[in-house]
């Protein structure tokens, strides 16, 4: 396991390099000069040159990348051009919100999704299976801003159970978590169900029946365990989705977070923030897949031995 861990960790290096290069490159394709945005109201060419030099925007891209990467390794993502703060502190201020929303949504998706998927498989082809699987599918097929607005209307306005928006109290998290999480529930439940059905078809499960185990023992003790392997991978991958993909939800619920930080930075062409956010999300995704893979390895000896 330790060897696997080290190998898996080393694997992150090239991934990180490619990812950071892509992030860096994307940002420099964006038209609309950040300097122009700072110079909204008539100003001199000198001031323009001064600002350009200050932010190093006049140097060749490769050099900018090198300098940027070097600073990244020193934990410095530069200062925001428009917001005039260290990008790191902006990200740190927003990260907890993203993590809370993402983490809870993920936990919600995972627990409810797995439970529904497992129940649907256990009662396969029953009315429960069909209706519940179809209903949760809706969670993933409705645009989530729409779902968010409906949630606000129903649970905040009509019922008054939760605040409409904001991030000032813990209960303000409930609706956003539900909205983000519902999409995940459908996904996880479907993956769980498909994986369980597939596992249930395998020879060894047949042998478990032949051994005299009850259906419940087989499904909970063996089949579900196997089905968790793909689920864990998906959950790992989804960290990127919930941390960054919650943009719309952060917007609708007027919540802070990396997504909304990124959106406003995109609107203002604040390069360092865009880079920082994308980099953070990339790292979150990398760590997510790492955690997913490690969890898989912990659960599956074949992966530890590199047999799969």
């Amino acid at each position, binding site marked *: 396991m330790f060897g696997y861990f080290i*190998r898996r960790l*080393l694997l992150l290096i090239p991934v990180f390099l490619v990812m950071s290069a892509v992030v860096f490159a994307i940002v420099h394709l964006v038209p609309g000069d950040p300097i122009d945005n700072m110079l909204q109201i008539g100003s001199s060419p000198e001031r323009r040159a001064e600002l350009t030099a200050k932010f190093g925007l006049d140097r060749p891209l490769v050099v900018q990348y090198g300098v940027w990467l070097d600073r990244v390794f020193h934990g410095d993502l530069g200062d925001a051009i428009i917001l005039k703060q260290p990008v790191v502190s902006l990200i740190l201020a927003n990260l907890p919100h993203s993590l809370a929303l993402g983490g809870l949504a993920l936990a919600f998706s995972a627990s409810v999704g797995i439970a529904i998927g497992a129940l649907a498989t256990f009662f396969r082809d029953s009315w429960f299976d069909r209706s519940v699987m179809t209903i949760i599918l809706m969670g993933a097929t409705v645009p989530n801003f729409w779902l968010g607005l409906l949630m606000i209307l129903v649970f905040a306005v009509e019922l008054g159970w939760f605040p409409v928006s904001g991030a000032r109290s813990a209960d303000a998290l409930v609706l956003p978590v539900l909205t983000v999480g519902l999409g995940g529930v459908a996904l996880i439940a479907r993956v769980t169900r498909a994986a369980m059905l597939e596992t249930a078809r395998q020879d060894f499960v047949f042998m478990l029946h032949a051994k005299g185990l009850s259906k419940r023992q087989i499904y909970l003790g063996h089949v579900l365990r196997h089905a968790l392997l793909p689920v864990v991978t998906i959950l790992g991958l989804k960290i990127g989705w919930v941390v960054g993909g919650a943009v719309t939800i952060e917007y609708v619920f007027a919540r802070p977070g990396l997504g909304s930080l990124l959106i406003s930075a995109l609107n203002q062409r604040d390069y360092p923030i865009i880079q920082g956010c994308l980099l953070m999300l990339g790292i979150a995704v990398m760590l997510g897949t790492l955690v997913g893979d490690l969890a898989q390895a912990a659960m599956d000896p074949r992966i530890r031995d*590199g047999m799969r």
Partner: protein
Amino acid sequence: MSDPMSAPILRFDGVSRDFSAQNGFFGRKRTMRAVDGVTLDIPRGKVTGVVGESGCGKSTLARLALHLLKPSIGHVYFEGNDLAGLKPAALRRQRRHMQMVFQDPYSSINPRFSIRDAVMEPFQVHGIRHTPAEGKERAARLLEMAGLDPQLAEHYPHQLSGGQKQRVGIARALALEPNLIVLDEPTASLDVSIQAQIIALLADLKSRLGLTYLFISHDLGLVRYFCDRIVVMYLGAAVEILPSTDAPHRHPYTRTLMESAFLPDPERRRAVTRLTGEIPSAFERPPGCAFATRCSFASGRCYAEKPVLLTTGRHAVACHHPLD
């Protein structure tokens, strides 16, 4: 062996093939030798059988024979030409003369091809054009040759049984009138009654078309029935070459193999020679004889020194303590 026509059609000259397996990007890179220094002549017009346990490198040898895999060491000569020395286009032309029938008939035909497409593909690949009528006629003749109803030409693979598919595979191999056909366990996935049919067909074709077969199988009984010579492989190496099916075997492994085969005769029951010890991993090949760990005759020398294949007459054996 002096007659030029009796020069071997195919020659393996010290052929080895390595595979490397790597776990991920930074994983340990491990190299295994699937075929280990095989030197072998395949005489024209004969059936050369290759037997050995699963994973001993039989299929790899078959692929090396047709240059579907490149040897890591050594050379393969077909009709005197080193296949590795050929340009890709020349190699493709050479392939007309050597064909292969695969172990698994179920996946050896593209599911999107009709049977006609499948047997006509060799012509298409080699730019041999037919009018539709000619094509139909040609496909029909090929199918007939393989003992199939020509009407099957319009069918698709999923509508055929395993035995039928294997016959399609044979028809396809025959299309370009090759000299050498490599048969990689062509009946392993078929029922006995079908297996016998296919073997009978192969025997018939051989005598009619003067083909040379390299017949790979794990079924000793079948090899003994069908082949003229038998090559016994163990862990990638040829350990014994029997010039005929009734030649006395001299390698302890060959004996074990013979004795493990179940005779279809309840009157001749016999006790099994129980092998102890494990098959060594091809990744960590022992320095000496690969069979030593399981051999009851093994001596210290067997563990230390690798026996070479020594030819006496037409019989060759690689053993420090050959049986008599």
